């Protein structure tokens, strides 16, 4: 098997600064207050994910999930230890982050795709599919600054899910689009998983993690607390008793459940 993502004792320290100007720092120093404080967002995390695995990354708010995802995505660099990946990375992380309000939807698709590492030919080839997926119709040639938030998000999603990649990271509320769009996204995500790409899925929704993933990592205050099969992972988190979307309609595609699993991402 080919290893896709490896973390070796990776840690990320964040420094919090309470004061920014010289005046404030001086006053704080005279009063013997702390000028800065640091905390470990990701603490000595090690794991190895093989190509084609789909892994859920779970944990309470502030447990370091997003930071870990940023380390894997290459936006941040671990302060100690290392994170290694193989192949191209794409994902539903901050979709639409690269959009420029004054450019048209069309220009933004090209720019965003280029940031994600696509060539001009590749974008041309996929352009129609992207536009069809986003379903923004005649607004394609108007500045994205005028888009509704749903249209903006749909366009961002569309570019991200059409990027060829070996690793696909998901960290975003799917609550933005309307119901048909959400279902389209879920279907596309399952397709991506079935293509044999490595998938790392950050979610609080036990039901959708169960459906999408075959392994779960649980972070607790930056420490990797659990690494193993999905069912036990969810039990480890004590999500089973509190979340009704798991208990009531497991494995069922009823409207209630899909609403629950999508909304629970928030």
């Amino acid at each position, binding site marked *: 098997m*080919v*290893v896709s993502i*490896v973390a070796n004792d990776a840690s990320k320290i*964040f*420094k919090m600064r309470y004061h920014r100007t010289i005046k404030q720092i001086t006053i704080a120093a005279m009063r013997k207050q702390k000028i800065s404080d640091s905390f470990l967002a990701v603490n000595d995390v090690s794991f190895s994910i093989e*190509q084609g695995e789909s892994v859920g990354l779970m944990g309470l708010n502030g447990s370091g999930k997003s930071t870990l995802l*940023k*380390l*894997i*995505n*290459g*936006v*941040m*660099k671990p302060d100690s230890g*290392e*994170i*290694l*990946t*193989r*192949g191209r*990375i794409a994902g539903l*992380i*901050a979709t639409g*982050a*690269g959009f*420029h309000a*004054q*450019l048209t939807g069309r*220009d933004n698709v*090209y*720019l965003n795709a*280029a*940031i*994600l590492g696509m*060539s*001009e030919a*590749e974008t041309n*080839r*996929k352009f129609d*599919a992207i536009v*069809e*997926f986003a379903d923004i119709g005649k607004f394609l040639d108007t500045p994205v600054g005028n888009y509704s938030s749903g249209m903006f998000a749909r366009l961002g999603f569309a570019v991200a899910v*059409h990027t*060829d990649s*070996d690793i696909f990271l998901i960290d975003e509320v799917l609550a933005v689009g309307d119901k048909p769009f959400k279902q*389209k996204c879920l279907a*596309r995500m399952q*397709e991506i998983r079935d*293509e044999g790409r490595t998938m790392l899925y950050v979610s609080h929704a036990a039901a959708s993690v169960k459906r999408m993933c075959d392994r779960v990592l649980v972070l607790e205050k930056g420490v990797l607390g659990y690494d193993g099969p999905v069912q036990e992972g969810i039990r480890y988190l004590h999500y089973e008793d509190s979340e009704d979307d798991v208990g009531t309609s497991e494995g069922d595609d009823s409207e209630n459940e899909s609403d629950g699993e999508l909304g629970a991402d928030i």
Partner: protein
Amino acid sequence: MTTQADPSRTQPVPLAEQPLASPFAGGGLVEVFRRRYLLKLLVRKAVRSRYQGSVLGLFWSYIQPLVRFCMYFFVIGLVLGLHKNLPNFAIHMFAAIVGVHFFTETFSSGTRSIISNKAIVRKMAMPREMFPVAAVITSAINTFPQLVILFVGSLAVGWKPDPMGLLAGVLGIAIVIVLGTALALLFSGMNVFFRDFQNIVQTFMLFTHWIVPMIYPFYKLAQSGLGRNTAFYDAYLSNPLTVAVLLLQRAFWIPTTLGKRGYPGPGRRFPDNASDVGFPVLPHHYMLLGWGMLAVSLVILVLCQMVFRSIEGKFAERL
């Protein structure tokens, strides 16, 4: 609706043979030029958004230097009378304005480049050098019209380009580009940590028009009491921007002055041959200085790239 991976996939190397690597893009400037397509799109975005919603559009990048030129020409040339003493003073000044304006625009827009793209830098992985480099290229595009004006203006007053002069001009512009890129890299990175840096740059900009021979000719400085002080003279010439300006003046202004009165003051004539124009109009080793400054600027660029690389790991969390 969906793109099936395999036919469209552009992957020459099988995944298993690709190396495990750190996802944190650290390819530096080399990587920037490997991803020229993205660079092109970023530059296009910057050029378009700069003149978004303005009626005159790109025309504005002519107006500012033109107004500055007219003002200086009126005050320095006509009120202080330099226009009479120095042949083609307007070309002398405009050649300098082009160089200085290119540099200041590169420097200041480069310094702001990472902050103003923070939405991308915080969330998406890409070579972060891309933004300062795009700022340099955008500035070059905005400066190009001025170079055209300088060309036409010089031709109008009888400019005959000579090979040495053209080489000097190219060298001067190369110094500005390399030095501007270096400083844009360094300051864009430091500006992430302390926004003071964009103010420092703005303050520094106040000097640039005065520390280069733009509104005064070089010989005035060389023959003044200050210029006779060797230490001051060397310090003055150790500013790469000064050397770049002198090279641009060698390219455009010197050939238009040949045979005219004013060397190196009223009453004497410029030589008939551009190559014979020497000190005190130009430092005698100006070409050597030019090559030296280009080398120094390249060293500064490498150093700035190294600093940038060592601090870019903190960009995402500090923005």
